[in-house]
């Protein structure tokens, strides 16, 4: 099982259609793959296309050319509804900030993800995750926008982990956090990921963070677009 490919990208090219100024591709990745259970630190300068790559992997954007295969599924062969379902089930997403629906309670935010993923509702699992992420249980009934940024990010992590997705993608989830909270967050994310044999693709331009991860990749290495 260890050499199953989690992410397999072949001959991927992408350029924004609405950009009339330059016809050049943002991304041109001939070949890139990630093993199941690996934790990857992806970095690169601002505007280099990191978020764009995540959107392609998440099935939100469609590649101009090439293939993105996740866990043996060529996701861009799927219909858009199937893509949405695939994402809900197999990918946990955490991003920079504003990860939660502000007017819902913490519990409802987690349940929202659980319902889209089709997983069973299990309060004790939520409580377990809360415990391991140092969130008190009574926070569950608070409105999401009443939480601190660090707490919100940890709730987003619970939501991403809850249904044990094989892949977690995180787009600069720590940029709004202070150093201590940030390190704690990454530690927890990797620890939970490892326990669930979950691939973690972590994007940041904060290079020192790379030490926490199995592998560090500069987007420039794999991306041949200028």
């Amino acid at each position: 099982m260890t050499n199953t490919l989690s992410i397999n990208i072949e001959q991927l090219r992408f350029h924004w259609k609405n950009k009339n100024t330059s016809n050049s591709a943002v991304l041109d990745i001939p070949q890139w793959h990630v093993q199941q259970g690996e934790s990857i630190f992806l970095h690169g300068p601002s505007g280099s296309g990191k978020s764009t790559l995540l959107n392609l992997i998440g099935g939100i954007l469609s590649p101009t050319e090439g293939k993105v295969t996740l866990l043996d599924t060529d996701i861009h062969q799927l219909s858009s509804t199937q893509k949405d379902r695939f994402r809900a089930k197999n990918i946990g997403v955490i991003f920079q900030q504003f990860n939660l629906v502000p007017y819902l309670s913490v519990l409802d935010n987690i349940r929202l993800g659980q319902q889209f993923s089709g997983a069973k509702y299990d309060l004790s699992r939520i409580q377990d995750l809360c415990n391991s992420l140092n969130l008190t249980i009574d926070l569950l009934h608070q409105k999401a926008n009443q939480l601190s940024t660090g707490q919100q990010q940890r709730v987003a992590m619970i939501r991403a982990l809850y249904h044990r997705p094989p892949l977690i993608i995180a787009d600069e989830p720590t940029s709004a956090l202070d150093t201590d909270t940030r390190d704690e967050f990454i530690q927890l994310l990797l620890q939970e990921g490892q326990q669930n044999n979950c691939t973690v693709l972590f994007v940041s331009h904060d290079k020192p963070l790379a030490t926490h991860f199995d592998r560090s990749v500069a987007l420039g290495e794999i991306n041949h677009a200028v």
Partner: protein
Amino acid sequence: MLYKLAWQSLLHRRTTALLTIFSIAIGMMIMLSIHHIQQQTKQGFTNTLSETDLIVGARSGPINLLLYSVFRIGSASNNISWDSYKTIKRHKNVRWTIPLSLGDSHQGYRVIGTSEDYFTYYRYGQKQALAFAEGQPFSGVYDAVLGAEVAKKLGYTLDQKIVLSHGVAKVSFTHHDDKPFTVVGILAPTGTPVDQSIHISLAGMEAIHIDWQRGVPVAGIGSGLKISAEEALTKDLTPKNITAFLVGLDNKMMTFRLQRAINDYSKEALMAVLPGVVLSELWQIMGGVEKALAFIALLVIVASLLGMVTMMLSTLQQRQRELAVLRAIGAPPWFMFCLIQLEVLLLTLAGLIAGTLLLWLGMLVAQPIIQDNYGLLIESNPISYTNLLYGSGILGIALLMACIPAFAAYRQSLGQGLTARA
């Protein structure tokens, strides 16, 4: 979950949501009230008179004749002579007549001089006859029979002495205080202008005006020309003229023939009208006004719906992050579409219900006012089949219009990356 999301989202923006609901409610209220009041007054008018084949009065407008003779609205420009009345009353096809002599009032309630036939032949609603709650019809010259509302509002009981005033204005300065009347009967409520009337005999009407000419007392106060109540009884109290009269026929087939005969009456300019025909003329006139009002109400509703849609569209900007979150956790774009639609549905539904309740409250307030002024008892409950139909129509329009922001949300979430662009 979708429902919870929509509901919590609206709660989150409750000020805007409440304002939106309120504006829809007002539109709805106007729309419904126009329809409801119109329908209820129509019914009220129609219910006031039953079994009467012809209304006869001096020649003027048919609607005017109907309004003053039956609904106590406005006043007659001319009287008709007692002789003409007697002639028509004797016509072989006439089964009954009810003479009406108007022009006086008591505390704003109109006084009707009539005959005992009023209590025998007058019909309202579904051919219902008048009933006495207390007492009996008048027999003496100075006897009066009160409508139910008059007795209730003024707190009068049997044997109460009342002084009639000249003219029909609320405040009158000339009173027939030398000839007080005694209440001998109180009618059961009917929900028609009868409730707002005071009935006396034609002789009584004649007696209080015996020392009057052309609407003013012949002599000043204290002058020898005044005739006292007792003295009046000794005089001939046969009326010289009356205002109008109602006619019931033996055979309805004869209605048009008699109407033509009365209209062609040579000795006096008379006019006979069919109440049903005049009512429909009245509705025709009101119909135009009603359509204009309904159109305005529709515009009000559309404006408030447009306001709601605009609000939805502009909040999409603020909701971009929320949509990004939903998208990231796997919500398909049509989920956003449904979310917006559901929010619009909830807002509109709340607006419609609030509008209906507002109208209901309004009708509870308006009911006694309308009854006091027009004698019509209108239903305060505005929920009816047609109004439900209107409500669902508005809901349909709202959902149709909501497609604009809903589709915008759909588009937005399609183009939305996993990162919320703040």
